[in-house]
């Protein structure tokens, strides 16, 4: 009897841990960001200066450049990844025979399993030179980071889209085919409307992933504190700035880094929540 109660309590405390972690992360980031929040307020979001004073005591810190860099690299990634991921999902559900769809599915999922640092390495040494020779620029910059980011999120997006397309009842598809619809018409008028929620959900989840991605972007975005004037220009993003400069920062600069981490955390929290609850729903049972 005692064992049963202990077991139940332990499982209850384990379950509440995710709640405490989430609240704990928010509370810690918020507390450590206070100094910077008091100093700069909401103007932090629009201030493009990031400069420490000579004496290292203070300075002016604004998050505009990393915020813009994060947004732009994510937008580039989404523009490239979305059509490709949709295409792959359509190929897997409607075009390929099972004998082809299965290995292709596994390959796509393996692509998703490769650690992000590998994408960064590969991107830096193999992809950046190609971008440099075809589009120009230094090789590293917004465009390269965006493209490699796209390659990273495609498998993830394609897998969720495929799963939700697969839930379309066969009867619906068959009725449309019986009316003489082409494959594309079935996809557009039957499958897409049926799995709309899942597809939009997968796009938003991938968006959240791209916003928070650190290592692949760290190799490729250039890590320069400047506003990009051109799509191939180097800049920086919130995760990359944190990865490279967080540990060495002092006082007000450190606090500003926490401020940026808080912004990233809150934004991805809302994005994930919207994707999960508004579009993907929860499959209870």
């Amino acid at each position: 009897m005692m064992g049963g109660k202990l077991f139940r309590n332990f499982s209850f405390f384990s379950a509440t841990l995710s709640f405490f972690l989430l609240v704990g992360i928010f509370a810690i980031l918020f507390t450590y960001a206070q100094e910077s929040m008091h100093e700069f307020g909401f103007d932090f979001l629009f201030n493009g200066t990031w400069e420490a004073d000579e004496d290292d005591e203070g300075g002016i810190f604004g998050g505009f450049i990393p915020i813009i860099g994060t947004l732009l690299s994510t937008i580039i990634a989404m523009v490239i990844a979305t059509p490709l991921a949709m295409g792959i999902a359509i190929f897997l559900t409607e075009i390929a025979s099972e004998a082809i769809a299965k290995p292709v599915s596994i390959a796509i999922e393996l692509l998703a399993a490769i650690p992000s640092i590998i994408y960064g390495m590969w991107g830096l040494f193999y992809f950046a030179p190609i971008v440099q020779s075809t589009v120009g620029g230094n090789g590293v910059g917004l465009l390269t980071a965006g493209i490699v980011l796209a390659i990273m999120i495609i498998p993830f997006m394609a897998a969720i889209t495929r799963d939700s397309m697969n839930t379309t009842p066969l009867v619906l598809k068959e009725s449309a085919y019986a009316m003489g619809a082409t494959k594309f018409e079935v996809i557009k008028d039957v499958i897409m409307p049926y799995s709309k929620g899942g597809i939009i959900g997968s796009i938003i989840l991938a968006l959240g992933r791209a916003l928070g991605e650190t290592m692949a972007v760290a190799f490729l975005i250039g890590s320069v504190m400047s506003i990009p004037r051109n799509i191939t220009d180097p800049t920086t993003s919130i995760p990359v700035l944190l990865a490279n400069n967080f540990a060495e920062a002092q006082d007000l600069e450190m606090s500003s880094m926490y401020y940026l981490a808080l912004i990233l955390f809150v934004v991805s929290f809302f994005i994930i929540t919207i994707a999960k609850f508004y579009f993907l729903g929860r499959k209870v049972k």
Partner: protein
Amino acid sequence: MNRLLLNKIILILSTLSAVIGIGFLFWILATLSYKGITSIHWSTFTHDLVKGGIRNLLVGQFTMAILASALAVPVGMMAGIYLREYGHGSKLASVIRNLSDVMMSAPSIVIGVFVFALLVDPFGGYNGYAGIVALSIMMIPIIISTTDNMLALVPKELREAGIALGGSKHKIILQIVVKAAKVGITTGVLLSFARIIGETAPLLFTSANNQFFTMDLTGQFPSLTVSIYNLATYPDEASRELAWAASFILTMIVLCINLIGRYAIRNKK
């Protein structure tokens, strides 16, 4: 005719995107294998980073990932058991389930920042424990969701049979329900292990890195992934070669664990 043409175009474009996706996988794997294999020497495995090998890094990375799993697997499984077996249908369980889903997608660098504030800053320096905690925070939500989903697949009748035999609730859970879901949960554990062993961002300023062989978790701890990030940015050829060798080995480890996990689940069904 027009709609048939449109149909063809869309189908060709879809097939093309699949080809592009597969193409990238092979491109990445091919360059990685070529660069990796040509850079691997016997000394890569027998020497530590300070002497141009990755022995201490492999041991360090595995040590942290295994200890993180030792922390995350029991906690995550127990939480999953609560959600499915005790709290199922309750408001609290559904709130926790949702929060855990959100945690699963939290940016890994933010988790690194959080653990830095919690376990590095107050204790005066980078330490292996902080790295382990950061990795386990990434792992717990994945284990929760796998356990939850896998327990949901266990037929109600099994639980009822247990009750009919007079088993107490926790005995039924442990000896019947969890046992029935064993394969699925093991696969989930393997896949999440494969995910955290390739993580870099949560380790950058928690356990950081160490050039020497050490098992002392109170100080900086060697990490394969953090070393790859450092080595790749050094200008000298030897460092880059070592980075490629380390990347290749890391990718092989991750992909092998993934394939083993998938194979296990396929054999069961």
